[in-house]
């Protein structure tokens, strides 16, 4: 019996120490890990859509809770004013969800640019949604009141030939982010004031 209790106590102590240590390290590294994930997964697309901004949009970001999820918003400072916000949303592509960051100008509600972050589309066809600017450039300077649909569905966007489904997914993602933007605009304008120099 004594032996059994000893076994129990030793294993319990080991596990609790290990749990405590790991929780502490996790707390310590959480912020950095989040930054790294943003930098390497969303960073390239973000810097592309906010090209020419004078700040690091990965650092200047804020969160707004939207229902159950927390959404990340990235601030772009142009000419000293935080005039642009970028956000990510998803649309259904051919091989899975397509993540798209959309930068929107707060002053005239126009899209500054879009960029694909993550996707699992067919290499060479749907993957061109990310690599080939022919699709993403069509969204530039569109008003958020525009219909984000491909021409086959009655919208203004020319789909990539051979990748209609992927192009549709990108449109869907853009429409979704515009939706979020509309819904949360009051809060966004409130929060973004903190970034004014």
């Amino acid at each position, binding site marked *: 019996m004594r*032996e059994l209790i*000893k*076994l129990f106590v*030793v*294993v319990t102590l*080991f*596990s609790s120490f*290990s749990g405590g*240590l*790991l929780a502490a*390290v*996790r707390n310590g*590294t959480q912020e*950095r*890990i989040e930054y*790294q*994930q943003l*930098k*390497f997964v969303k960073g390239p697309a973000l810097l592309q859509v906010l090209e020419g901004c004078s700040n690091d949009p990965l650092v200047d970001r804020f969160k707004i809770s939207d229902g159950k999820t927390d959404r990340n918003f990235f601030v772009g400072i142009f000419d000293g004013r935080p005039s642009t916000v970028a956000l990510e949303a998803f649309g259904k592509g051919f091989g899975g969800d397509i993540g798209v960051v959309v930068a929107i100008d707060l002053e005239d509600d126009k899209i500054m640019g879009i960029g694909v972050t993550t996707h699992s589309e067919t290499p060479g066809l749907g993957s061109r949604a990310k690599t080939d600017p022919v699709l993403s450039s069509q969204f530039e300077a569109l008003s958020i009141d525009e219909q984000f649909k491909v021409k086959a569905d009655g919208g203004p966007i020319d789909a990539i030939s051979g990748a209609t489904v992927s192009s549709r997914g990108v449109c869907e993602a853009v429409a979704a982010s515009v939706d979020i933007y509309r819904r949360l605009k009051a809060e966004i304008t409130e929060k973004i004031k903190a970034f004014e120099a």
Partner: protein
Amino acid sequence: MAKTVVQEFTKGLWAEIPPFRLVLGLCPILAVTKSVENGVGMGLATTFVLVFSNVLISLLRNVIPKRVRIACFIVVIATFVTLVELLMQAFTYPLFLKLGIFIPLIVVNCVVLGRAEAFAAKNGVVASFADGMGIGIGFTLSLTALALFREVLGNGTFTVPITGATFSVFGPSFQPFSFMVEAPGAFVCLGLMLCIMNLFGNK
């Protein structure tokens, strides 16, 4: 303990170099050696775990009851592996993305548990530290050698670890021998290297 600390260290580099002499820990060896950068990263992560788990287990060897020793070893090893995983995510995220699932899998790498059971549980702290270092560095060297072989032949490139710069070894007209970077190529390479190792120094 007839051997000196230096001997404990150097045996890991040749006489008991893990994948070739002990033929342990083959899973990561086959899976991650597609490029030198991955090989070195995996080797260093394993070395870190090996050294710290060896030292801690050696320190606690009189506290751990014999009957639950494996469970305790696994808890110690898993703790250090998770630690490495978090640190890699925080500081070397691109490498973490490439190694993916193989980082958490260090927990079940037989080299690590093997050293804990066969060495650290029976020897002092300094000897265990030397043993962990030796085996770890030996493991890293083997991964690097295999990765170098596979990457140069299979891809025609050489990736400098840490900086991530890639060189073309044979120039643009080289037709990659892509069999080498696929899974069967790993087995063939490993087999050839085992063969060469056995030709030399058959003690």
